[in-house]
């Protein structure tokens, strides 16, 4: 029967820009080609920045020697590279990646490119609790990071609860977050003025976000956190697709929007809080990295892997500059993160208008 009817030959449609990747017999993944290329390019860039980071400092180390140390081979520069620079760089990498992913997730749920942990109160919650503890005499660097994690998560939970009204309204979430951020900042200021001068100075450095004196002890907790949360991040990368639609459409497609959003926000908040606990609220990384990444990949949602890589690039590069610009004085990395990322984002936005249709540089 069916052989008689001529079936017109038609080209099967696949989502434009994606490639279907088969893994084994049944598993098939959609891979965004441009996002994959950008990720590869970012890995190369990150590697270059890392080598530069390890080579420069009070004394210059040849790139070959630096790579040797990283690979665990004996080298005369073991002490400078392996003990001083490498651990601090690894902390920077992890903090940047965590902020990048956190920003991407929070911006996705809030549907707002300005939403990020340092805008909606997470950083401010972490600061308020940490600075409060400092002024009350608690200065142990083994306890403070955990307090900061608690502060960040508590602030986010409050914002979420207050923004809830039979559902999560994206704009409400951002506005209430901004309100909390302002309130918590004044609480922090109150602590700063009450506390003694030295504590206030120390707190100020922490609040700017700094990698000074960070080493393996700080790298381990955030490293573990990222590793443990990796399955959740992989889930989030897929779930992001659905929450980027409007609520009605997403629900009609069978998405349990409330749960998915809560999951994404919770993951973002935990990552941002852990990163803040490790290095303090390094401003703008979570805001910039996802926006730059998305403009590079031109995907319909914010690409998580590229955001993480870009966050790492920004923090490591900023810390390299922070260490060297006014050496021997070391600046807190937070002073420079915006300086590194913001001009590039602005350039991308300006170029974006002509680039979309014409593509002429």
């Amino acid at each position: 029967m069916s052989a008689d009817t001529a079936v017109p030959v038609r080209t099967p449609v696949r989502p434009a820009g994606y490639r279907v990747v088969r893994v084994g017999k049944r598993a098939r993944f959609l891979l965004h080609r441009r996002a994959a290329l950008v990720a590869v390019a970012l890995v190369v860039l990150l590697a270059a920045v890392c080598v530069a980071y390890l080579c420069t400092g009070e004394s210059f180390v040849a790139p070959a020697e630096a790579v040797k140390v990283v690979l665990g081979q004996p080298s005369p520069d073991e002490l400078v590279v392996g003990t001083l620079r490498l651990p601090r760089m690894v902390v920077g990498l992890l903090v940047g990646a965590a902020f990048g992913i956190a920003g991407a997730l929070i911006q996705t749920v809030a549907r707002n490119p300005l939403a990020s942990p340092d805008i909606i109160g997470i950083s401010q919650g972490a600061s308020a609790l940490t600075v409060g503890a400092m002024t009350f005499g608690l200065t142990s660097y083994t306890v403070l990071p955990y307090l900061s994690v608690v502060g960040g998560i508590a602030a986010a939970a409050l914002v979420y609860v207050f923004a809830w009204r039979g559902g999560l309204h994206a704009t409400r979430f951002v506005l209430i977050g901004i309100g909390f951020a302002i309130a918590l900042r004044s609480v922090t200021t109150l602590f700063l003025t009450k506390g003694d001068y030295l504590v206030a100075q120390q707190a100020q450095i922490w609040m700017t976000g700094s990698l000074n004196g960070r080493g393996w002890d700080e790298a381990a907790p955030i490293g573990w956190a990222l590793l443990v949360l990796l399955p959740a991040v992989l889930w989030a990368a897929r779930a992001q697709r659905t929450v980027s639609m409007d609520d009605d459409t997403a629900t009609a497609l069978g998405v349990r929007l409330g749960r998915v959003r809560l999951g994404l926000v919770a993951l973002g908040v935990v990552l941002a809080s852990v990163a803040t606990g490790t290095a303090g609220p390094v401003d703008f990384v979570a805001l910039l990295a996802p926006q730059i990444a998305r403009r590079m990949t031109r995907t319909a949602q914010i690409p998580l892997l590229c955001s993480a890589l870009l966050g790492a690039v920004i923090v490591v590069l900023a810390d390299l500059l922070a260490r060297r610009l006014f050496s021997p004085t070391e600046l807190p990395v937070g002073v420079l993160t915006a300086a590194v990322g913001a001009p590039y984002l602005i350039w991308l936005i300006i170029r974006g208008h002509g680039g979309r249709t014409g593509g002429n540089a």
Partner: protein
Amino acid sequence: MTTTCPTDADTTTPSRLTARFLTLAYEDRTVVHELDLAVPDGRVTVIVGPNACGKSTTLRALGRLLKPAGGSVLLDGTELARIPTRTIARSVGLLPQSPVAPEAITVSDLVARGRQPHQRWWQQWSDEDERAVTDAMERTDITALGDRPVDELSGGQRQRVWIAMALAQDTDLLLLDEPTTYLDIAHQVEVLDLVRRLAAPAADGTRGRTVVTVLHDLNQAARYADHLVAMKAGRIVAEGRPEDVVTAGLVREVFGLEAVIVPDPVTGSPLVVPGAPWSPDRSAPSAPSPSSSGKAL
């Protein structure tokens, strides 16, 4: 030639989707009152009524976008609230009134997202997905637009893309909330013809899809509906075949409009012709105005 629906029809037609004593409210304002509705399978059901009569609200509840304040919506006899939302999404597709696409998304990417309820984390693209998406884009005539960003399309093209997304979901039931809103008359007809084609039985005799749609235009509703539901103030005033439902009395009762009903010259379905437009000649016959034709525009 024309699609005729069995005349014994509407009381005996099976129904997968039904509403019972459905009461719907926003906050504490009740919009729909104890509504009973059985959506006939394999037919086109059109809900009409004046603005704010609760027709879109009812459609949203049928698609579980709105939780009933009282009563229930049943899919195959089970309350929607008891069925996992993903399972519902494999049987019921819904196109909301003003859907929002993610920024910079391409047409084919958006249509492909209609496959969401059929996909798993590790199965992001099956042969079945490809067939459904290709099919949906062909039916809505947007195959050539596949690589274009949705933001760059015209209103008519965009609406067809959204319909394609709902079609790609490949559901037996399809709920469309005013699908013709942003379209010019040619595209309106195109979309409504597509709706009729979806509901038409396949060559092998299997039943077509069940479509429920809200329309603003009563004449279009009368032309395209198998089953017409007229609502007013949150209640169903009349339902049945358009030729039985659309009468001068109903138009007066539901819309508060004086009109004459004549047979549509093409389809024979009831055509609502409202009374003569206002003109100064009629309201003030003693003072004819030369600018009256200009004002009528």
